[in-house]
């Protein structure tokens, strides 16, 4: 399989807003280091998940890859084309091939736009087809995402349909330009539990039919385990562990991954939890701890961990970990 997405040493720093007085008295600019040097590749046809707690940088990563946010440093490749610095005009051509689905279908759809119009809108932007052809395509896509009969849904407004149906509309809108790559940012987090599997199933079916590649961003590890091929675990702007689903979930090497996995509730009253209690809280991404970012909370931390920052290293063919003393 060839690489569809390649990210090298990607960084995104957001400047911290200061008040007027602070600007006068301090010269030091502070930055939130949302992503601080991450590298990974996503192969064509793969579902690659980014997991981690809020503030770890997973959403920023997804948006930076699509250049919805401009990177501070590093390189992004899409099919061997470096897109880090290409002009917006050329980027727009490529955007047809990379789309995004957001978490909140209530916020991502224009409440005053009919569903059908929202779905065909990307075709207008990219100048594809004439008016009739666009409508035809939109109806076809609505049917494909399970909103049938499509003629009925075409003229409805977002508030007239359920949350699950709304997320289907968002998926149809992303799919209508036949992209190769989709960033799905928490696509099922706001969907009712009894319907989540139906959205995941739809995404899998579309993947098969259109040979899609997904970057799946989620805080829900059970969902990540269910859907992904490979997983990267992020902590404070860094990837701490990356590997196949099997490697990461059954043989976690990083103490953070282990703690994270052990905190997920298991829907079985007979299951005896082996939970690992972490001390403290996630530190601020403005001044991340020196050395390993996880060392102040790590139950296995040694002296080296507070001095040297570990780099992401191979432990076996597909399994990477950033830890001086992997488990």
């Amino acid at each position, binding site marked *: 399989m060839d690489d569809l997405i390649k990210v090298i040493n990607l960084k995104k720093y957001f400047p911290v807003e200061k008040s007027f007085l602070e600007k006068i008295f301090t010269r030091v600019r502070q930055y939130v280091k949302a992503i601080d040097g991450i590298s990974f590749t996503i192969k064509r046809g793969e579902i690659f998940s980014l997991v981690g*707690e*809020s503030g770890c940088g997973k959403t920023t990563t997804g948006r930076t890859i699509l250049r919805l946010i401009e990177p501070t440093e590093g390189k992004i490749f899409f099919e061997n084309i470096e897109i880090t610095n290409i002009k917006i005009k050329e980027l727009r051509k490529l955007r047809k091939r990379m789309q995004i689905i957001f978490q909140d279908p209530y916020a991502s759809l224009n409440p005053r736009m009919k569903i059908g119009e929202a779905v065909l809108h990307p075709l207008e932007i990219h100048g594809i087809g004439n008016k009739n052809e666009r409508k035809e395509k939109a109806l076809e896509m609505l049917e494909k995402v399970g909103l049938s009969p499509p003629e009925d849904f075409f003229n409805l407004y977002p508030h007239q349909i*359920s*949350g*699950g*149906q709304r997320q289907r509309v968002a998926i149809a809108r992303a799919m209508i330009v036949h992209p190769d790559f989709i960033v799905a940012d928490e696509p099922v987090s706001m969907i*009712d*539990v*009894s*319907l*989540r*599997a*139906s959205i*995941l*199933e739809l995404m899998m079916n579309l993947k098969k039919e259109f040979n899609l590649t997904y970057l799946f961003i989620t*805080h829900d*590890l*059970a*969902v990540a*385990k*269910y859907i992904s091929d490979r997983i990267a675990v992020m902590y404070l702007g860094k990837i701490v562990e990356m590997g196949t689903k*099997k490697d990461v*979930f*059954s043989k976690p090497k990083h103490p953070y991954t282990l*703690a*994270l*996995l052990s*905190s*997920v*509730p*298991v*829907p*079985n*009253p*007979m*299951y005896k*939890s082996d*939970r690992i*209690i*972490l001390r403290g*809280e*996630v530190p601020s991404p403005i001044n991340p701890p020196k050395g390993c970012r996880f060392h102040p909370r790590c139950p296995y931390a040694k002296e080296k961990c507070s001095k040297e920052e570990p780099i992401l290293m191979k432990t076996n063919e597909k399994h990477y970990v950033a830890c001086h003393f992997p488990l």
Partner: protein
Amino acid sequence: MEKILSIEKLKTYYQTLSGTIKAVDNVTLHVCKGEFLGIVGESGSGKSTLGLSILKLVPPPGRIIDGKIILNGINIIELNEKEMQKIRGKKIGMIFQDPMTSLNPLQKVGEQLIETLIVHEKISKKEAKEKAESLFEKVGIPKERFNDYPHQLSGGMRQRVMIAIAISLNPDIIIADEPTTALDVIVQAHILDLLKNLMETYNLSIILITHDLSIVLERCHKVAVMYAGNIVEYTDIYKIYEKPLHPYTIGLLQSIPNIKLDEQKINFIPGNPPDLINLPKGCRFFPRCIKRMEKCKEINPELIEIDKEHFVRCFLYE
């Protein structure tokens, strides 16, 4: 076990311009001393309205139409607002999803707790401060956080402040409405551990309202599954896990991924939850049920005890 709270045939409706929303309809359940009850349901199932009804805090146009809420032998539905104020906090503590909206953003968190203690317990400021400090310690908030404002604390710490306030007046019951939904999974585990410890230390009863069946199966003693304003199944967590009876419960159990399983197929329940204004005439789950019968279309079954302490609202088991 001693029953602390019994709810009998409770009905809480919202009268809106477009019709009556039957958010809680004929709900019957009870909580014993030291019991951890989970109320599980999806959005619009009426679980939050049920929690607010127990505190008599249902916002207008919502109103308790009928039924009884018996707390330590007293039907609190008959109490007036002034009498209720003595129940809230003192007998029933509460924790909500978003502590940022329940805490005063302009007041130091320690002072908010001191204020609660002074108002309710009629003690001196010095005593209140000592008590507040010991409460903070009990819920795991470091001393130096006492003078912080809510925005300076993390979500998990804010929720700990809420828990400290909720237990400060030694209530018998705590109602926790989605207390960990806004929190990350590690913090969630900490908060749930804390609740469990407090429950065991003080012999508290806790009603946990959540959409997450995994948490309930992992932590609670009993569970009530709600669907469209009704309780459809009500029993202990072992029975619901090993022998779920209601088709909705079965569907829900099959739709949650389990991180401990390697090969798993998760399913979904086709269709959407009903509109609470235009409820189906018969069983509310009828349009989505795979085991529906002719009868279910016309009549909504009653919640009946079909096995010891196992209640279900379904004609399949009559």
